[in-house]
């Protein structure tokens, strides 16, 4: 039996992941400049929590939803947890399921992998980039942890050979093992993913006229670590017309908008519920540089100032 990540952690209790989801949702709401969100389709990996599905249905009003689930041994359990009747299950590995989905609608697709990037995932990314219509959004999340330090091994060498064994010739030229420390693995993975998207879009657009050519416009480049280091990279696939209605200028106000290589680090403040309520009363007036009260450590205040609109407050009763 394959162990899915939903059997390892409770997604609801991963605060950075939770904030990331809300940021995606807030940003993707702007797709309505291209077409009504109710005309969109959402494709994701809902697991047993379906948190992304709930949020996108509630906030964006998307009704055509498809969850891909490879853990066919847990069919009954997953099916029991489907929160809304508009969510259709497709059983199997994304690699097998994606080519069989209809792609006629504009789509928001979140390839939220729980295993590191490898060539099979790049094939998914290529396939989706090759078929998504203009005005669609593609987000890819992968664990991108450099791995625990092993004193007996040459870590730089080990990290590079590990990455090479997963993505082969897709490693950008010039990348060395030393580039893969800390967030370096995420940085390199982003380059590989974006290259795959752009390469596919170039092939696909080759016979099209300038105005119809499809481009990738990056919106997200998130780094976060609820446990291991994660990368989420994604953006819009747009032709010239859709880019005119929804271009970079329409996202500039979002603090976490990242159109280039520079990442946005989602950091989780450690605060009590009382402290959160106290700070909230002073926000957004103080944001982002929350200088008071001094008895809350500065680092926590500052972190909270950046993310307070997305920060989940957990209590014992699930609401």
């Amino acid at each position, binding site marked *: 039996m394959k162990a899915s990540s939903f059997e390892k952690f409770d997604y609801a209790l991963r605060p950075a992941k939770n904030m990331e989801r809300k940021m995606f949702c807030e940003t993707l709401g702007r797709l309505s400049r291209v077409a009504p969100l109710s005309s969109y389709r959402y494709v994701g990996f809902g697991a047993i929590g379906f948190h992304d599905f709930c949020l996108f249905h509630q906030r964006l009003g998307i009704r055509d939803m498809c969850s891909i689930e490879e853990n066919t041994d847990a069919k009954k359990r997953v099916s029991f947890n489907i929160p809304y009747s508009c969510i259709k299950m497709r059983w199997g590995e994304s*690699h*097998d399921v994606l*080519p*069989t989905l*209809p792609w006629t609608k504009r789509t928001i697709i979140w390839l939220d992998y729980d295993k590191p990037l*490898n*060539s099979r995932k*790049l*094939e998914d990314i*290529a*396939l989706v980039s*090759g*078929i998504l219509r203009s005005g669609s959004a593609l987000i890819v999340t992968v664990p991108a942890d450099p791995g625990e330090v092993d004193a007996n091994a040459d870590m730089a060498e080990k990290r590079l050979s590990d990455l090479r*064994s997963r*993505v*082969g*010739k*897709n490693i950008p030229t010039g990348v060395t093992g030393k580039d893969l420390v800390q967030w370096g693995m995420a940085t390199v993975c982003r380059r590989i993913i974006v290259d795959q998207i752009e390469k*596919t879009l*170039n*092939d*696909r*657009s*080759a*016979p*099209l*006229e300038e105005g119809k050519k499809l481009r990738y416009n990056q919106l997200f480049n998130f780094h976060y670590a609820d446990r291991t280091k994660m990368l989420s990279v994604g953006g819009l696939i747009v032709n010239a017309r859709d880019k005119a209605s929804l271009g970079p200028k329409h996202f500039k106000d979002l603090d976490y908008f990242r159109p280039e290589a520079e990442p946005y680090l989602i950091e989780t403040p450690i605060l009590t519920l009382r402290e959160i309520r106290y700070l909230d009363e002073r926000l957004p007036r103080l944001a982002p540089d929350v200088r008071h009260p001094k008895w809350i450590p500065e680092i926590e205040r500052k972190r909270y100032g950046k993310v307070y609109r997305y920060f989940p407050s957990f209590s014992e009763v699930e609401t």
Partner: protein
Amino acid sequence: MAKRHTPMKEPFADPPDEGQDSLVIDAMPTKELFIEMLTRDIALIPAIIDLVDNSADGAKRVKGEGSLKGFLVRLTITSDQFKITDNCGGITVETARKYAFRFGRASGAPSVKHSVGQFGVGMKRAIFKIGRQFRVESTTDTSRFVVDVDVNAWAEQPKKWTFEFAERDEDTTHSKDSVGTEILITALHPDVADVFGLESFEGELRNDMRTRLQDPISRGLVVTVNGVPVDAEPMTMLSDPRLAPAYRKLTYNGTGAKTVTAKLYCGLGRSESRSEERAEAGWNVFCNGRLILEADKSPVTGWKEEVDSVSIPGFHGQYNYLRGIAYFDSDDPARLPWNTTKTGLNTDSPIYRAVKLEMMRLMRPVVDFLNRLKEERQAKDDPGEKGPLEELVESAKPEPVMSIDTRPVFEPPVPKPKSQNKEPKMQPIHYEAPADQVYAVKKVLKVNSFRDVGLKTFKYFYDAEVNE
């Protein structure tokens, strides 16, 4: 009334006169170089098929896209002459004078919808490939001409880039029966004469025509070689609705450019005999009806390029059932992804780059299905027994692709999981242990055989440490 010796249009301007300007360098090609270059990159059979393509294009010019019934191309091939005769509309004097004999396609040349001829070299190249003396006679309903050329004599006149009409009538009326073109080539190259004399040649030619010309032949064009018709073999795929091929049509328009359509089919097929299975698997690519790539299993059609990372795996025996067909069509042949000899794909073609992504997408579910079929075969205990997928594939019937109900994506049936009460797969273990310890355990377990010692100790450990 026939006028003689009317020069046809000259493809090259006069070479510069060296005496007048010493700064000018003569770059005029020699005819021998020209003839040599033109014929070097094409094999004999494709050159002959080019001539048949020209006839088929003539038929398409008359009939448009529909049936080609009533059109006939006759090839007569012996060791001393080659003759091709058709009733496909003929070449007008005007076309002959301006375009048909030019080396290369003149920019103003009229195009035939969905034609194969494109580069304006096919006829000349084929003629030069075969022999040194040719006679072209062509009759349309309003004109008739004859061109008779001794290539050796022509090549000896380096500056003369013209041929002459031997006979020419214009504004005359000709009966329907006499309309058509005949090309007679004599003074065959010795090596060509040898090949034409071989018993096996006709069979080879016939085989190649069967595949390369399957589109026009299946639309009704009759092609005969030495009196015997060539039959087309339409592409087949398995037609069972559960295994029916995926179909997708893509259209590329461009401002000021003719539309290109690509029709893609991908599914399963089965060969008549096991020995042909591998040979027939893969992708077939047609451009305006001409088979350009046959049963391709290479990176050109999306199979794996390198060991580590591409979507479609490299070709293996398990994929022998895979059949893919891509039909590219355009009124402007120059937009199609073929090379100049029409024997291969131009993989840099923008349209091909885009269509290939789609071919790979259609192919993936088929590949997945064939992987599952392989797993099913490997998992079965009794080699004589057939699994549900194998049963399905073997009972499905191949039918011509055009008559199968297709679907947007190949969605293979998912086999039902094996019934729960079936015996689990067993794995034997062999090991040795010190004899006194084994006897001691045997005594404690109160069993009679060493087999039971092994089984009981395994079960004891499994229940205690593994089973939840």
